[in-house]
């Protein structure tokens, strides 16, 4: 871990007000490995806040536990770090009490699709107004590269020396059947696209789900014949295929590819609005 003090001569960073005060007193700016995709994702959240001029108090982050829990050192605004897997349900409580908030949940693949699957599925089903961003690097990076429910079949990890036997989750399909109303998937190779998707997702009323396929060169890459971070990055970039293109492709061929783009959007009644309508009705009757 390297501790970096902010340089004193340089002019202040445009996001200086929003970024973490810890930077000022010499806390680590980030703890991500060389070539990790998470750093750029965190940076792009700063871009999102700057471009949209968002009020940080209205868009609190709820981060899970895993490599993604190191994001708050870079993230703009306020971060509420939850326990492993409990992002969506914690944000549900906050959103219901303060309907003016728009929680942004950031969770890893082990976080959202293994220990917290139930909370994620129920969040989609409730259609509660929040943005959930899944950072999918396909392994448990923080704990040393164990297999995750998103690890591709046959991939080697710390706990599957001879290859992963199980079938990975398709998070987008899961969100779709569970009832999420805005679903998109991008890779770390499409930063501008996913920032634009976030912008649309923040304006969407309901449960928005954006999956970002990321890289883990330290564990996933090293164990699976991607010696350099850029190899893994290229592999992800080249296996991505847009929805439009995918429509004309053979389903067999698509199995090995990652379909990216804004995949689904619909308007459905949102839980917080429904609840407060109910409150008005009940109170009206009482008085």
């Amino acid at each position, binding site marked *: 871990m390297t501790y970096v003090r902010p340089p004193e001569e340089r002019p202040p960073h445009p996001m200086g007000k929003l970024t973490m005060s810890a930077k000022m007193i010499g806390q680590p700016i980030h703890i991500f490995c060389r070539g990790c995709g998470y750093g750029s994702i965190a940076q792009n959240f700063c871009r999102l806040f700057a471009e949209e001029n968002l009020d940080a108090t209205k868009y609190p982050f709820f981060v899970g*536990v895993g490599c993604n829990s190191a994001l708050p050192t870079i993230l703009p605004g*306020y971060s509420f770090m*939850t326990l492993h897997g409990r992002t969506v*349900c*914690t944000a*549900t409580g906050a959103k219901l*009490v303060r309907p003016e*908030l728009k929680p942004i949940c950031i969770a890893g693949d082990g976080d959202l699709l293994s220990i917290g699957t139930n909370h994620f599925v129920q969040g989609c089903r409730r259609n509660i107004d929040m943005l959930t961003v899944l950072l999918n690097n396909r392994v448990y990076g923080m704990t040393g590269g164990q297999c995750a429910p998103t690890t591709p079949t046959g991939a080697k990890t710390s706990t599957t020396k001879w290859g992963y036997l199980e079938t990975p989750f398709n998070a987008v399909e899961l969100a779709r059947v569970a009832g999420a109303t805005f679903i998109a998937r991008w890779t770390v190779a499409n930063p501008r696209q996913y920032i634009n998707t976030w912008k649309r997702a923040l304006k969407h009323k309901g449960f928005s789900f954006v999956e970002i396929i990321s890289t883990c060169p330290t564990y996933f890459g090293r164990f699976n014949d991607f010696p350099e971070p850029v190899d893994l990055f290229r592999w992800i970039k080249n296996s991505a295929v847009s929805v439009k293109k995918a429509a004309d492709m053979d389903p067999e061929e698509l199995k090995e590819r990652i379909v990216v783009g804004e995949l689904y959007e619909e308007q459905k009644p949102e839980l917080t609005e429904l609840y407060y309508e109910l409150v008005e009705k009940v109170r009206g009757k009482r008085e």
Partner: protein
Amino acid sequence: MNLPELKIGDSMEGKDLMMGNHAFVEGAIAAGCRFFAGYPITPQNEVPERMSWRMPEIGGVFMQMEDELASIAAVIGASAAGAKACTSTSGPGFCLMQECISWAVGIELPLVISDVQRTGPSSGIVSLPHHSDVMQAHYGGNGDYVLPTYAPSSCQELFDLAIDAFNTAEIYRTPVIFLSDAWLGQLYEVVKFPTPEELEKRVIPRRIAEGNPQTYIPFTRKDKKTGEFIITPTYQLGTVYMPFWVPSVSHNPMGLPIEGDTMQQDEIPSYALVEALNDKILNNEEKIVQTEELYLDDADVVIVCYGMPGRSAKGAVRELRKEGIKVGLLRFKTVWPFPTKKMTEVAQTVKKIVVPEMNWGQLFVEIDRYAAKEGAKAWLLRQISKLHEPSEIVAKVKEVLAQ
């Protein structure tokens, strides 16, 4: 839309014949609870059932979550967003909640967890009482902490202590455990409600930070000069009084993650954290502890108990006093932090102690420890899934006196 404020007219007035579980709900609402998340589990189902229509009535939020893990996580989210919040469960659900209780302790959020205890272990017997979670309330989660824990013994106390539990949670910024049991929850008794004026005096509202947010310190810290713990107002999502990062990992009072050897400080920062979390409660033992005492002045033997056995013990005391036997009663309304001062005081004057407990002897360990220090001897009277008959306690007291 604004956060629902406490309106005095929302709570009940006069008196009513009420079930124990309902009395807790009314107590919570009177105390200003505006968020409830729960999951069905017998024998506490009447709590979410009543909450589900009372909450919309008063402009609060009721949410039935997918499991106990999510219930308590939602309560934490709501509390962080500024609402007084609570949840309710029974033994097996309480185990699931331990993870998040430990988390709430770490990030110092006020909330109340009601545990309507049932017979265990495992799924046990859903409709019978067993004070099996007394130790779990203290030692259940990972980490090292003590939570104020209430043990009511009547429907009136379920109402009154619920208000005290919420107040304690707000004052010390800590989760508070509320130990009821299957029979107490299903018991019907008359509950008297305080008048709006009384209630206004009793209820402590959520403290909100003021002044420059840059100088707001979100977590409890020790004043180096006086040695006292400074408990700052709770941070709130949606306002500027919020640390940039509320970490669930060990942190310093500023909310920055710490690791023992990376910071060059005189003390180990994680030591300071655990010290603050424990001592802010333990140092205020006298303010938190509530007891009921009967005939302690001239007693030869004292019955020490908490919760439902307190009712049989009272019957036993009345019977024994009629016979001319000098017996006293010490009933704890709060079991944690353990009432060390009260227990020591009693053990100094009375040397024989009978402890009727509805378990295999959980709080007895502590009672015996403090009794032994003063040279007193304690006897345990166990009962599972059943309340002690007053005659059992009478017999035990006589047996003890004969020794």
